[in-house]
């Protein structure tokens, strides 16, 4: 009942969020129609789910009691038979899973496949924590969320999908941002056997490391970015913790924002994801890396819980999707001088991790404001200046995805590194005979501000005024033409 109640609360919350957003925006008839349909669909879905559960219960009712096997129902035996046939796993493993409580922080590219395989494998209790809502850009890798979940909390959409997959396990969705205070409360009220780090930022990684060391829990840590993944289990069997390896957080600007013999579920999951990866790689590039790492995380959790050995502790698995190479790097032993797991720890309670890392505990972009008021131009004024030189400072590949007519691409990274500046100088010199204003635009309006500052310095000798287009192409899409894609 506990989780269902949370579920309903969340649904109300999400509908309120959507309503609130609509009031802020243009409350067009079309949007009212969307909202009405959304409500109807939600009601229908709830009814459908109720009936589906009723049907499942009726069909499998006769298997609920099992006088032939203690500890598991007949449905359990049938359902999990393919993994119980493994000698390393067996009925002991299944009963261990049924008794375990796992916390997954982050329902993104790593948390989704991990939760999917853990729910499928029959973990007793799965607590999922995330603060974020589903966006269209999540769907290519965050496999628990669907098109109809856009705008609702990720843990709600994950809850529905996982419950649909396995109604016999307890799933506890918690809609909150993981920080020292929320996790301290959570650990006061609940007990866990293993924690999975499916987060997307450094601050949360230190937080989860410290809370696991302080509570003596293994931390199955995975991370993925672009074409690379890393996986290891921290604080397990005398192995090192995250701080032993990385005592100092990285400078924020260097962090870039993933039948017969039996088979254990995550294994084909990894292979299947790798196959998908190879197929995708042949045509474009790969974004299934978080899926692979998340699946591997699920595998490590099962190994720990069923005491199988071979846990990826004191080793770091790195996955290079470009080269299709896995490396298994032997790690150091526990650092006796580690601030949290060492012999004389200085961290004995949770700290402020955003302060420690000098970075926010999420991977969203924070807007900068570094220019004077008269260095900006509102995006709506673009159309009144068709002759003015418009420089788009996004990376070349983003420019190729979508761009404004007559804009000239010169990436901010080139300006920063001083690359091809002679080419830009020529362009500006030619232009300066006709005009004196140069408009700088980027994706969100942050790099363009940095570019304006640097261009002013580099080209002081030219009679030009560099202006930042406020809010960048996102603002253009919102205020001028919504058909320009927000990506």
């Amino acid at each position, binding site marked *: 009942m506990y989780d269902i109640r949370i579920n309903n609360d969340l649904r109300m919350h999400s509908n309120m969020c959507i309503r609130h957003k609509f009031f802020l925006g243009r409350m067009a008839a079309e949007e009212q129609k969307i909202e009405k349909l959304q409500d109807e669909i939600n009601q229908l879905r709830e009814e459908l789910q109720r009936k589906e559960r009723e049907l499942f219960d009726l069909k499998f009712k006769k298997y609920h009691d099992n006088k032939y096997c203690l500890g598991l129902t007949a449905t359990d035996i049938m359902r999990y038979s393919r993994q119980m046939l493994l000698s390393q796993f067996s009925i002991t493993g299944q009963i261990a899973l049924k008794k375990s409580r796992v916390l997954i922080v*982050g329902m*993104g*590219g*790593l*948390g989704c496949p991990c939760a999917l395989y853990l729910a499928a494998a029959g973990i007793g209790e799965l607590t999922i924590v995330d603060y974020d809502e589903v966006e269209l850009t999540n769907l290519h890798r965050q496999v628990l969320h669907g098109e109809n979940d856009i705008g609702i909390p990720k843990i709600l959409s994950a809850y529905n999908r996982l419950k649909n997959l396995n109604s016999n396990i307890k799933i506890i969705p918690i809609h909150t941002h993981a920080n020292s205070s929320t996790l301290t409360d959570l650990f006061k009220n609940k007990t866990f056997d293993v924690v999975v*780090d*499916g*987060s*997307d*930022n*450094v601050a949360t*990684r230190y937080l989860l490391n410290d809370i696991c060391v302080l509570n003596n829990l293994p931390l199955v840590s*995975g*991370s*993925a*970015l*672009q*074409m*690379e*993944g*890393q996986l290891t289990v921290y604080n397990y069997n005398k192995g090192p913790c995250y701080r032993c*390896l*990385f005592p*100092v*957080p*990285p*400078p924020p*600007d*260097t*962090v*870039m*924002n*993933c039948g017969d013999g039996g088979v254990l579920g995550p294994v084909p999951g990894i292979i299947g994801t790798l196959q998908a990866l190879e197929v995708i790689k042949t045509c474009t590039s790969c974004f299934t890396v*978080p899926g692979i*790492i998340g699946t591997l995380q699920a595998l490590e959790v099962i190994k720990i819980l069923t005491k199988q050995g071979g846990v990826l502790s004191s080793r*770091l698995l*790195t996955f*290079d*999707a*470009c*080269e299709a190479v896995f*490396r*298994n*790097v*032997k*790690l*150091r032993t526990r650092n006796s001088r580690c601030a949290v797991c060492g012999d004389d720890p200085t961290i004995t309670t949770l700290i402020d991790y955003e302060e420690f890392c000098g970075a926010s505990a999420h*991977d969203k972009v924070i807007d900068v404001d570094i220019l004077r008021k008269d260095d900006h131009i509102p995006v709506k004024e673009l159309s009144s200046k068709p002759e003015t030189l418009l420089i788009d400072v996004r990376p070349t590949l983003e420019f190729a995805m979508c761009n404004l007519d007559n804009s000239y691409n010169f990436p901010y990274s080139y300006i920063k590194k001083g690359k091809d500046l002679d080419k830009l100088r020529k362009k500006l010199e030619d232009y300066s005979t006709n005009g004196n204003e140069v408009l700088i635009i980027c994706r969100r309006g942050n790099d363009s501000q940095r570019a304006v500052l640097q261009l002013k310095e580099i080209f002081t000798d030219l009679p030009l005024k560099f202006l930042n287009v406020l809010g960048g192409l996102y603002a253009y899409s919102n205020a001028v033409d919504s058909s320009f894609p927000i990506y």
Partner: protein
Amino acid sequence: MPKKILTCYSARELAGCSETFLDVEDSILYADLLEIIVKSYSLEDIKNNVILAVNEEYSNTSERILLKTGDEIAIIPPISGG
């Protein structure tokens, strides 16, 4: 003598290469090796955040490292995305 240097994906963009060779002493302090590597590949920004692994084994930061021709030194920065 030349040693093979591998940069993991996230260090590759900074370093501008994925696999290369570097001439370093056969016996070298970790700190000196790290210094040479960050200078050679412009990795100053992440100097304090990388793991150096020689032949797929973590190098202890306080140790003298013994190398021979053909040894593989991987530069592994932490990644935090998910």
